[in-house]
C-alpha cells in the first residue's frame, strides 16, 4: 500500500506514527506488512471481514421512521496497537476507578458519609434522576454494585483520559470479541508475530465474576441474562454473551417471582435463578418498584433482590455514579475512599450548576463540548467548533433555562489511527472502551472495543451515529 499520502497532524496523537512521520517502534511489524500489501489485497481483507460480520449477523438494530432495521457494525480491519506499558497504566487506573465507584455507591445508599463530610454536594447525588431511593439501605454481595464496567478512554498528546464511565448496562464486549475473531483470521502470521495478548477468555472471566456474586455463595449458581428482547439495539450482544457465559437468555415474560425468589418458566416448570445479569435499564426492571407501565421487567424483582435471594448485576441505582455531573468528582472519590491520586485523568469538566462555570461555558460555547448530563450515545451534545451560531444560540438558551442539566468540557483531539478507506490508508479518530469486572476480585482482559469515527474529521465514535469498530492489540511486554 502506498503510505506516502497518509497525513499526520502534530496537534493530534497518531497511534501508529510519530509527529515526524516515522512509524512508532511497536507498530513496525504491522507497517511492514502493510507496505508489502497491495491496495487490492487490503481491500479484499476489508471486504472479507465485512462479509463475515454480515454472514454471521453481527448487527445492531436502528430504528427509523417506519421500522427497525438490522445494521452491520462497520469494522475497519487494521488493528489499533497498544504497548504492554500503556496497557499497564490503563489496567491499574481502571481497577482503581471501579473500586472507588463501588465504595461510593455503597456509601451513598447507606451512610452517605461522602456527603456529610462535604466532599460532594448533596444535591448532585440526591437530585440526580439516576439516584434510586428504592435502593437505600441495600448492600449487594461483596458490596459490589458495579460488576461490569465499560469505561470510555481517549488519548491525546497529553496522555490517556477517562471520557466517561458506563456503569448501568455497558455494551460493546461482543464487538470486542467479534472484531478479534475476524481480524485474527485475516492477519494470521502477523498476529502471531506481534505476540498479541489474548482476550478470548472474557466469557469465562465474566462467568467467574457473576458466580462470585451469587447470593447464597453457591459454587454453581443459575445465571440468566435479562434482555429487553429482539427489538433492542444490542440484542445480538445479549445472545452472544449469554452463550459465552453459559447463561439462559431470558425476557421479563419468562420470569416470575414467587415467595421472594426469582424463577424462570421452563418446559419442566419453574426453575430458580440466582444471578440476573440484566441488560435492561433500571426504570423497566420491576413495575412494582420503578416504572409502573414497564412490561419488560418482573414484578417483585427488586424485593427478591433486597431480600438477598437474587443478585442483580449491575445493581439498580448505579447510574448515579456515571452521571456526567458526578463524573467530575471521581478523582475526589478516589482520594476520599482510597487515599490515592487517580491514575487515569478526568477530562476537565465544568458543571453549569456552578455560576462561575455557567458563565465560562456561555462565554466560550464556540470552543467547548457541552453535554446534557442525562444523555448518552453522543446524543444531545453541542460540539462548539462544529456548530453554527444558530445552534449555539439555541443551546445557550437551554443551558440558561436548566444549568444543572449541562456540563462543558474542552474539545479534545481524540487520537487517530490508520484505517483503510477507499483502498487507501487514512487517519480516523478513535477511542477505547475496555471492560473491567469486579466480583470478589477485579478482572480485566487486555483488550477493548475500539470505536472509530469513520467519517473524515468526525469526533463522534458512537455506532448509532456513523461510528465503527476496530480490533485492539495489546502487545506482550
Amino acid at each position, binding site marked *: 500500500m502506498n503510505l506516502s499520502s497518509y497525513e499526520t497532524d502534530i496537534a493530534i496523537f497518531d497511534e501508529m506514527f510519530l509527529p515526524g512521520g516515522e512509524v512508532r517502534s511497536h507498530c513496525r511489524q504491522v507497517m511492514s506488512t502493510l507496505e508489502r500489501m497491495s491496495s487490492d489485497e487490503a481491500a479484499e481483507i476489508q471486504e472479507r471481514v465485512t462479509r463475515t460480520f454480515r454472514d454471521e449477523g453481527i448487527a445492531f438494530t436502528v430504528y427509523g421512521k417506519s421500522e427497525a432495521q438490522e445494521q452491520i457494525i462497520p469494522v475497519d480491519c487494521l488493528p489499533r496497537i497498544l504497548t504492554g506499558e500503556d496497557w499497564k497504566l490503563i489496567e491499574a487506573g481502571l481497577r482503581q476507578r471501579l473500586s472507588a465507584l463501588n465504595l461510593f455507591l455503597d456509601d451513598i445508599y447507606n451512610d452517605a458519609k461522602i456527603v456529610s463530610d462535604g466532599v460532594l454536594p448533596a444535591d448532585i447525588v440526591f437530585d440526580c434522576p439516576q439516584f434510586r431511593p428504592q435502593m437505600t439501605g441495600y448492600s449487594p454481595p461483596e458490596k459490589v454494585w458495579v460488576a461490569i464496567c465499560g469505561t470510555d478512554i481517549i488519548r491525546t498528546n497529553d496522555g490517556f483520559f477517562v471520557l466517561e464511565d458506563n456503569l448501568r448496562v455497558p455494551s460493546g464486549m461482543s464487538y470486542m470479541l467479534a472484531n478479534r475473531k475476524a481480524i485474527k483470521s485475516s492477519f494470521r502470521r502477523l498476529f502471531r508475530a506481534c505476540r498479541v495478548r489474548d482476550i478470548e477468555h472474557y466469557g469465562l472471566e465474566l462467568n467467574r465474576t457473576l458466580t462470585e456474586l451469587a447470593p447464597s455463595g453457591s459454587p454453581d449458581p443459575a445465571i440468566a441474562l435479562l434482555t429487553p428482547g429482539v427489538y433492542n439495539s444490542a440484542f445480538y450482544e445479549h445472545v452472544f454473551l449469554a*452463550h459465552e457465559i453459559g447463561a439462559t437468555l431470558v425476557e421479563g415474560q419468562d420470569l416470575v417471582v414467587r415467595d421472594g425468589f426469582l424463577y424462570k418458566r*421452563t418446559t419442566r416448570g419453574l426453575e430458580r435463578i440466582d444471578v440476573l445479569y440484566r441488560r435492561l435499564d433500571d426504570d423497566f426492571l420491576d413495575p412494582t418498584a420503578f416504572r409502573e407501565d414497564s412490561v419488560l421487567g418482573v414484578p417483585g424483582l427488586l424485593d427478591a433482590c433486597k431480600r438477598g435471594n437474587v443478585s442483580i448485576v449491575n445493581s439498580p441505582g448505579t447510574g448515579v455514579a456515571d452521571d456526567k455531573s458526578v463524573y467530575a468528582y471521581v478523582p475526589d472519590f478516589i482520594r476520599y475512599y482510597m487515599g490515592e491520586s487517580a491514575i487515569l485523568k478526568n477530562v476537565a469538566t465544568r458543571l453549569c450548576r456552578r455560576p462561575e462555570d455557567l458563565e465560562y461555558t456561555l462565554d466560550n460555547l464556540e470552543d467547548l463540548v457541552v453535554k446534557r448530563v442525562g444523555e448518552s450515545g453522543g446524543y444531545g451534545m453541542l460540539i462548539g467548533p462544529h456548530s453554527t451560531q444558530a445552534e449555539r444560540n439555541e443551546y445557550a438558551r437551554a443551558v440558561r433555562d436548566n444549568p444543572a442539566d449541562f456540563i462543558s468540557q474542552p474539545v479534545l483531539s481524540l487520537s487517530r489511527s490508520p484505517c483503510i478507506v477507499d483502498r487507501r490508508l487514512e487517519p480516523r479518530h478513535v477511542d477505547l472502551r475496555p471492560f473491567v469486572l469486579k466480583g470478589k476480585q477485579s478482572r480485566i482482559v487486555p483488550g477493548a472495543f475500539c470505536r472509530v469515527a469513520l467519517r473524515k474529521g468526525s469526533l463522534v465514535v458512537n455506532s448509532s451515529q456513523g461510528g465503527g469498530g476496530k480490533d485492539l492489540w495489546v502487545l506482550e511486554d
Partner: protein
Amino acid sequence: MLARNAQGIYWLGRYLERADLLCRMMGLQVGALVDRPVAEINFSWRRLFASIGHTPSGGLFDFDNDDFTQADSFTLAGEATFEQRNPSSLAACIRMGRENARQMRNCITAEMWTSLNLSYLKFCESDIVSIWRHSPEAFFDETARDLRSFFGVANATMYRDEAWLFLLLGGAVERAQGACSLLLAQAAEEAKGEAALEYGLESLLAVFEAQETYRRRFGFEVAADKVRELLVTDRLLPNSIGSSCDATYEYLSRIGPAPNQDPGKPLRAAGRTCSLIRHDWPDERDRRKLIEKICDGSMLVHTFVDKGFFQYSG
C-alpha cells in the same frame, strides 16, 4: 429449557418445513408452465393456494387461454413466493423462520444460524422478475436445497437435548398438517367433478417425493386410492402423514410430560392421531373424512403442545 425458547425452536422447525413444502410445490408448478395443458396448470394453482389456506389478492382465474394463464401464473407465483403480506408465502416463512432463529440464537449452533442467515440473505436478493427471467425451477430447487442444508447442519452440530427435540417436533407437526391440507385440497378439486387428472396425482407424488416408492409398490399405473394409501400410511416414506404422526409421537414421548395440569395430554393426542392411521384407515370408506380427522388431530396436538409446554401459567 426455557418455555419461550422451546416455542421459538418449535416454530423455527414449523416455518422451515412449511417453506420446504411450498418450494417443492412451486418448483413443480413453474415446471408445469413449460409443457402442461392450461387446465392442469389452473388445477394445480387452485390446489396450491387451497393447501396453504390463502386466497390470492387478485383471485384465481380459470383462463383457457395460454397467454393469460402464463401472465396470471407470474402474478400468482409472485404472491406465493415473495409477497410479505401473504403470511403463507415462501418469503414470509423464511423470514419468520430466520427471525425465530435470530431470537433463539443461544439455543442453536453458530453453524445453524450462519447456514440459515446465508440462505435468507440470498433469498432476499431475488425477486419474481429476476427468477422468472432465468429459470424459476432452479430458484425453487436451490432454495429447497438451502433449507434442507439447514436441517443437515442442525443434524450434524446440534446437541441432542430438548431444543433438538422441539425443532424436530415442529417439523413433524408441520409436515403432517401440510400433507393433510394438500391431500384435502386435492380431494376438494376432485370432488368438483373435473377429470380425474392423472397429472394432479402424479404431481402429488412428486411433491411428496414418492414417485419412485409408488412405482416400486404399485407399478406405473397411477390410481387415486393407491396414491392416498401411500401418502397417508407408508411409515417408511419420510413425508407421509403416517411417518410424520409417528415422529410427532416419538418426539413427544422423548420430551416427556408437560409442566401443566395435565402433563400427558399432548402425547395422548398424538397417540390418537397415529391410531387413526394405523387402525381406522383400513376400514374407513370415507377416506377424505378420515384425513380431515387426522388433520384435526394434528392441530389438537399442536394446541396441547402450545398450552402444555409454552403457555402454561407459572
